């Protein structure tokens, strides 16, 4: 991953952006937190794409992951708990020229903001939605989240979580007009980078669930997974993600999965004995709501006034 290709280019750029142009304030996440890896991967995608920092907006809700905009050198919107998606969609609605990233978490997206999750994916506006899923509420200090495993002890369930967790993949795959669903872990940076890059390049809402370490409150959840590589199932396909040697070494269990096959994607997502990694579903042809919501953004003031006169004429007595 640290090859020569990234920073050495013979192309002539009007303005050439380096990683530093996409970095904001110093990240204040805990040492060992998986969020750092996601941030680095996002910086790299933007740098490789040479996206102008002023044309990119990172929108978030509330929670550890939602601090991400503060660590970006782009525009950012750190809003309300659970409400990143409506704001992100609003940004895109009349400014489709802006590039939108959403940082949200398992509590933010799957619990308090669950209604928006269902609808924003249906709108399928062009944006990358990264769900940082550490199976716990971190910022408020260790409460059960919608993805906390049964039996895992938290401050709200001291004898262990009592209800089976949500399966965010099956829910997401069930949403009409969904167009890109991927799952990845934070501790394989090449796969994370490839996933975010593919997500960024997809036109539509790219939903990426990132299974992610919280070394302070849910370390055990991830440690158990990391200790048993057979728990993961790496999805491979020529239409899927580029998979490098490190992922092949780390995840020996693999299957061929065509991401255009929604039925198979459901089967893969339903099998909770194996955690799928890679691209579950991809439909590049799903309609995007901004193509409808941006109607008339190109109107001149003269056209607006002429339209208004027509409307008023019909009401005039």
């Amino acid at each position: 991953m640290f090859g020569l290709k990234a920073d050495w280019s013979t192309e002539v750029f009007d303005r050439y952006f380096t990683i530093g142009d996409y970095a904001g304030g110093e990240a204040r996440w805990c040492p060992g937190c998986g969020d750092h890896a996601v941030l680095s991967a996002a910086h790299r995608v933007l740098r490789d794409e040479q996206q102008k920092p002023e044309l990119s907006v990172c929108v978030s809700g509330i929670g550890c992951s939602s601090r991400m905009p503060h660590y970006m050198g782009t525009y950012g919107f750190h809003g309300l708990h659970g409400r990143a998606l409506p704001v992100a969609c609003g940004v895109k609605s009349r400014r489709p020229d802006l590039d939108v990233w959403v940082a949200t978490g398992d509590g933010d997206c799957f619990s308090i903001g669950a209604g928006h999750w269902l609808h924003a994916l249906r709108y399928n506006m062009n944006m990358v939605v990264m769900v940082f899923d550490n199976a716990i509420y971190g910022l408020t200090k260790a409460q059960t989240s919608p993805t906390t495993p049964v039996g895992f002890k938290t401050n709200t369930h001291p004898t262990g979580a009592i209800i089976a967790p949500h399966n965010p993949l099956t829910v997401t795959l069930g949403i009409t007009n969904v167009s890109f669903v991927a799952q990845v872990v934070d501790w394989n940076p090449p796969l994370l980078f490839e996933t975010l890059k593919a997500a960024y390049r997809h036109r539509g809402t790219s939903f990426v669930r990132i299974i992610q370490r919280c070394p302070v409150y849910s370390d055990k959840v991830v440690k158990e997974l990391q200790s048993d590589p057979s728990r993961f199932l790496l999805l491979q396909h020529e239409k899927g993600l580029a998979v490098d040697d490190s992922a092949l070494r780390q995840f020996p269990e693999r299957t061929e999965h065509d991401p255009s096959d929604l039925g198979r994607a459901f089967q893969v997502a339903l099998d909770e004995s194996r955690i799928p990694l890679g691209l579950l579903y991809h439909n590049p042809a799903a309609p995007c709501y901004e193509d409808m919501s941006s109607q008339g953004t190109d109107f001149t003031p003269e056209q607006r006034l002429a339209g208004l006169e027509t409307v008023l004429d019909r009401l005039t007595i």
Partner: protein
Amino acid sequence: MSKAHASAGREAKILKEHIVEIVSDSGEGAQKCGQTFGTVGAKMGNGVWTVEIIPAEIQPPARSPAGASGIRIRFASHTVTNMGDEADLVVAFNEQVLYSRIANGAYHRGTRVLLEDKWRDDPVPEIREQYAKAVAEFRENGLDVHELPIEKACLAITENPRRGKNMFVLGMLCYLYSRDLDRAKGEIAIAFKRKGAEVIGLNHRLFEAGHAFAAEQLDFRYAVPPQPEEALAGKRFIVTNGNQAVALGVMASGMELVSMYPITPATSASHYLADVYHQVGGFVHQAEDEIAAIGFAIGASYAGKTACTITSGPGLALKTEMLALAVMAEVPLVLVDVQRGGPSTGLPTKVEQGDLLAVLYGEPGDAPKVVLAAATIEECLHFVIMARRLAETFRTPVVLLTDANLATGVQPYPRPEPSAEWLAPPVDQSEWSEDVPPYDWDARTGLSPRPIPGMPGGQYILTGLAHTTHSRVAYDSDSNQLSSEMRSRKLSALASTLNPPTVHGDEDGDLLLVGWGSTLGAIEEAVDRARAEGLAVSCVHLRFLAPLEPGLKEIFARFRRVMTVEINYSDDLKAPLITDETRRYAQLAMLLRGQTLVDVDCWSVVYGHPLQPGMIHGVIRERLAAIQDGGDA
């Protein structure tokens, strides 16, 4: 037609104004009939105010008092600003729906009732009994009941009178009020334009039959001449309800996005916009819920396209946290709250001015924002235009309060002449100087320029957390105090540019009424009546609620007693256990008491209907008598 012409010679009694109601079961078209009748009047130059009578359900049980659906039209030879007092004439499709209107005090002794008589011979004995009993009761109570075979006459023209009776009744009314027949038929053609020539033809026949029927059956006839030409001053007029006016304001302000969730009585603004917005380059987003609706609008506003969200009480409550975010992060936004009866689901189709304090103080912490209240349908239009400009100039959300009375009231008013200055400027994408922080507050005004995504060098992270001038999360002790001061100072800056409100009536006197919102017309009419009796009463009407218009203390000091008149709840001082100290005041009164330290009294009710001049006139007399008895206030 021949009969209509034959009787057209019957002498019409000339009136200055009349109030007509049409009441029916839901789905019988009374509203379409009344709207068309009102439009004909407006086009002939009458002052007109129409207000719909809407049941809460779509199809409530037939022949039930609670299911009364209808419309009131007040029209005059002068400008009309409110629904008036009791109706002078009512057309009722059945006798049961009249009961609810009687209970609302809608009629006086002598009100003429044109009643469908088919129920008298109904096959169901209970219905026959109900009808006979009701007619006897109505007559005992002084109503002038004319039983008419309306349905029978309609059957001669259509097999389904339920769908055509309304245009038959329109014909009757147009005869009764000597309206211009061609104009009325033109309106029918417009109303049924989408349904084709056959439907228009049928309705024209029903209309003509109704006209002839009234000439034959009724021995009275009226005329309400138009306003004098000079009153119209050669102006062009449009006819809309308040929600359409809000929608027109949105378009005329250059706002390109309305983001909403369906809620009564606000939604019809979006219906209208959805129909015409594409012609001016805008879009209605129907969000998944009220929170998403305002969040979406805030996203667009943050990205440089100031947007509007339109809602009503329960939706306002859900939007609270987002509204506070817009205040905290200084995002321009226009929120229109079409108030209805509360709390909770309350009275969805009925009027109340119950959201004032929620709008001013609903958010945890201090959340200063600009709050305006439209007092007329015309103001619904112009205040939205002002709201967008205020929002962008002061980098703040602006809440515009209207209510169900304005939303469903229909009135002619001068056609706006849209100007490029009303439109939003193009999104600024010029380079931002990196020396200027995103909240570069001017300590005198609290104002600061706003970077917009796309501006090179302007990158900042908007946050709802307490933040520094650089929009970084504030970990120091001073930033929150400073930013709170700056947000509040913007209101002082705006207040310093406002003029004191104008007093209607003498500049001093015994009693000053203070109102806000849709009650303007009724309050002024009541004050004019009282002044005609020699009473020393005046009134003042507030449009800005935050910041308050200046000079109120000085105005209040010139009157012996000051009281607000509002449509929200307050304790009656005469009720059990109520004392000066425990009394809960009406919302504006509470605000004014706190801001002016004047002992502002109040009178307010929550019956769910608009205030009527007669009610307010009674209150004025009563309070003035108390002031005289008490020597002083």
